[in-house]
């Protein structure tokens, strides 16, 4: 590992703003928060995956993956980050390293040429270059290539150093944040900056979630200056240092980025969530309060309260007809991170019973919130093996599973409704209006008449009533197996009878062409 990357990883793991990290001993802290992976029992993406997830929503740049085929070939265009403009971010660019490139050490040259080609063809505002395991292993210096290319072509080339084998998705998120800090944020000054400029970090606008929240901000006159990185333009990210406040939306992964924005540019940050009604209101309040502290007109607070009152009243009205449809249903939640409590709160608001929530990837603070909201820690669990989850669902321990795509089939194969609440989902559930979409999705899932049909017995699971009619047994032997079917036809369900075989027409032994189709025997 390059020393620079090594110290970067040590740096992002030693996060003073992170509660978990603060709670550790000096020795533990040195080890970082990466858990060693167990061969044969590991799941989840790598650091490169995490970096790509965090940066790909920047819609107008070219994302160029320096790798052999699998890293981009198996993974491009597989997420639902929505764009209101350029579609360039959806295009898969890779150097597709071949054996020859690797053996001959052509990696860096190929990367340089690829950068040139992508700039000449698409003229993006910037090129994000991702390093992966193989180039890192053979020592390709993507920083140097990016620097040279940026100088030569006059387009910023951002090296994202997060080879997969360095660690998990979470580490990749962090390293992506570092790349933005080192190479993007602060490189462009906005034409004008207002007291109502905010950064939103950690929302990737999956299926348009950011747009469910944006109308609220629009009405308050709040401008998303730096979006990191939902529906973001490159220039937006580059100007993020001029925002007045940062809201950290998802997970702890990008907390380092938020903290460093505070340290370097004096932008205070807070953690909030747009999942659920109370959380959305809380987030808006904090946002406005901090803006006022930083120089916005105090009347913003009043407008904020008025907006919250209006929106809350409206959404509760809209939800009312759905409450009886979902109230009392038992939910098993398998998400993690801050969703382990924010979704719980949202579901409880609807009168649903949360029988368990996974606290994987959740911090101590997250866990405290779960305990606070559920008034007991009995329903928290860490990981659940698919087998156990299947049992639990099959035994009707829950009416619906809400989780990410990985456990989708555990629920479906147990014939239990499933609602997608992770990043691959196709519906946005953020803000006030998102709550309505979520409840509709739950209603659609749990109250679908299909479940009763699917769970009902198959025709052969119950004996037929005795009709008292006689159906003669099948006669003759099966032409394939030559097994006699005499006496096998006692079942009255078989109405078809095999015709007797035609005699062999030619002298070929052991085979007789028959008028009947063999497979029907």
């Amino acid at each position, binding site marked *: 590992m390059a020393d620079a990357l090594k110290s970067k990883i040590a740096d992002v793991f030693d996060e003073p703003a992170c509660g978990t990290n603060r709670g550790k001993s000096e020795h533990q802290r040195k080890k970082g928060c990466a858990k060693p992976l167990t061969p044969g029992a590991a799941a989840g993406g790598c650091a490169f995956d995490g970096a790509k997830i965090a940066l790909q929503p920047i819609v107008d740049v070219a994302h160029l993956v320096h*790798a052999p*085929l699998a890293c981009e070939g198996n993974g491009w265009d597989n997420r639902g980050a929505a764009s209101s403009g350029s579609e360039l971010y959806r295009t898969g660019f890779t150097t597709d390293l071949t054996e020859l490139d690797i053996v001959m050490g052509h990696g860096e040259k190929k990367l340089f040429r690829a950068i040139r*080609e992508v700039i000449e*063809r698409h003229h993006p505002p910037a090129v994000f270059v991702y390093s992966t395991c193989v180039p890192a*292993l053979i020592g390709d210096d993507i920083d140097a290539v990016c620097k040279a290319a940026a100088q030569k072509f006059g387009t910023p080339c951002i090296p994202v150093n997060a080879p*997969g*084998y360095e*660690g998990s998705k979470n580490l990749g998120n962090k390293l992506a944040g570092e790349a933005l800090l080192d190479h993007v944020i602060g490189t462009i000054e906005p034409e004008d900056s207002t007291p109502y400029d905010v950064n939103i970090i950690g929302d990737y606008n999956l299926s348009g979630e950011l747009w469910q929240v944006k109308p609220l901000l629009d009405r308050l006159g709040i401008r998303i200056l730096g979006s990191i990185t939902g529906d973001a333009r490159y220039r937006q990210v580059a100007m993020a240092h001029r925002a007045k406040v940062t809201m950290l939306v998802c997970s702890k992964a990008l907390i380092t980025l938020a903290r460093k924005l505070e340290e370097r540019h004096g932008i205070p940050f807070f953690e909030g969530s747009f999942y659920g009604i109370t959380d959305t209101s809380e987030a808006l309040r904090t946002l406005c309060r901090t803006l006022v502290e930083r120089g916005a007109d105090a009347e913003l607070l009043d407008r904020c309260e008025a907006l919250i009152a209006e929106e809350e009243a409206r959404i509760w009205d809209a939800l009312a007809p759905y409450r009886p449809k979902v109230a009392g249903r038992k939910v098993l939640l398998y998400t993690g991170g801050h969703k382990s409590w924010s979704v719980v709160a949202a579901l409880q608001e609807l009168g649903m019973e949360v029988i368990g929530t996974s606290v994987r990837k959740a911090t101590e603070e997250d866990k405290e919130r779960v305990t606070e909201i559920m008034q007991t820690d009995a329903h928290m669990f860490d990981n659940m093996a698919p087998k156990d989850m299947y049992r639990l669902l099959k035994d009707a321990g829950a009416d619906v599973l809400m989780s990410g795509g990985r456990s*989708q089939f555990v629920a479906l194969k147990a014939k239990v409704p499933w609602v997608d609440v992770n990043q691959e989902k196709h519906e946005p559930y953020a803000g006030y209006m998102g709550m309505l979409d979520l409840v509709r999705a739950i209603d659609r899932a749990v109250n679908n008449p299909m479940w009763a049909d699917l769970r009902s017995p198959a025709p052969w699971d119950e004996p037929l009533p005795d009709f008292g009619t006689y159906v003669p047994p099948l006669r003759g032997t099966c032409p394939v197996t030559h097994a006699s079917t005499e006496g096998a036809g006692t079942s009255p369900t078989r109405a078809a009878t095999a015709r007797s075989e035609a005699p062999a027409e030619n002298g070929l032994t052991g085979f007789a062409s028959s008028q009947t189709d063999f497979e029907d025997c």
Partner: protein
Amino acid sequence: MARITHPKRALSTNPLKSSAPLGAALAYLGIEGAVPLFHGSQGCTAFAMVHLVRHFKEAVPLQTTAMNEVSTILGGAEQIEEAIENLRKKSNPRFIGIASTALTETRGEDVVGELKEILGRRTDFAGTAVVYASTPDFAGGLEDGWAKAVEAIVDSLVPAIDPVFRKSDPRQVNLLCGSYLTPAEVEELVRMIRAFGLEPIVLPDISTSLDGHVSENWSGTSLGGTRLADIERMVESAFTLAVGESMRRAAKLIEDRAFVPYRVFHSVTGLKPVDAIVRTLMELAAQNDAPPSIKRDRARLVDAALDAHFHIGGLKVALGADPDLLFALSNCLAGLGAEIVTAVTTTTANPVAGRVPAAEVLVGDLGDFETSAASNGAQMLVTHAHGRHAAHNLHLPLLRAGFPIFDRLGAQDICRVGYRGTRAFLYEVANIAQAQHHRASPTDFGAAPIPEEFDHVPQIATH
């Protein structure tokens, strides 16, 4: 004969290829009680798994040796051993198929040697067959990985036989399935073989494991597939039918081991290719006739071709796929007069690419595919689901074929082989061609439009 060309560029735009380890994993999933294991970093597995899950809409067992930087440099034998141990504890698979990745291959591990040592020492692993295929991501694509995995399975599990004492069952045949065959297609081939009174051993058999069914219990391994005992019995077969040129080496390997003669079918789509396999089945069944169901299917295909050729004849088609599939589909369409204006493939390992009925076969990506389809005036695109970008940009219909198909349901049920599958395929193509609604107007032919003065102008009541 097509000219094979490689575009001169460093940048690959919108990959057409899926990786070789993914192909190997797919082949391993056609073995009963299997868990494929990638020897690489956990991301290699995660990407492949998501890809497979999106295509099949099924939980896919796929595991990783979870290589990190240190184990990559020092060698991953211990990781493999630990992975096998953990997998056996967790899901007790009967079969573990290991596929290497670019990461471990760049370092250059002697996995074959290491594995031999591990399995020799760890006698407690005896209940699980472990097979290894070298499938670096930087060489070839899905089809190559699949082929290598099948060769590895044959190499490890098909015993060598003394020809003198060879037990042979004249009614048993081996069916080696190429990577592009869907579960429904494997099923159709099996149906045809059975119709001749022959009993096939299918390798790999994804028709029972990835066909999409709900079983009574949760399993951490594949839900069906070729039984290990059946793989051993392949030596007793009278013949090996290999579908796809990429299966030739595996078929040859069985012949070397057990003196089972083989024949490779480059395609089983289209009248003549299916005729060829039916004729072979007639030989194997030693009869001068085909079962009535097969005859009827053929008659119906002939009729379908008669109806469809009006739409397919002259149709300009752009095709992008792994070589075997590219050949099968292009050959069938060209057989009905379609013009293959663009043919893009993924790998040069398969010589069948040179037989594609097009002037040129590009070894490239969907970026090349889109550019070429546009400049050659293609009327229809045929490739996997990622072709939707090209379809959108060029305003052309897309027929989804190959892997992955993540934006349509029932990818496992698509059947374009045999007389029946070909018939469905011809209808599919003809219907897409027909759906491109075009109303002729005088200007299309250079005629002046009808003068406006002839047009009736309705009187609008003003009172």
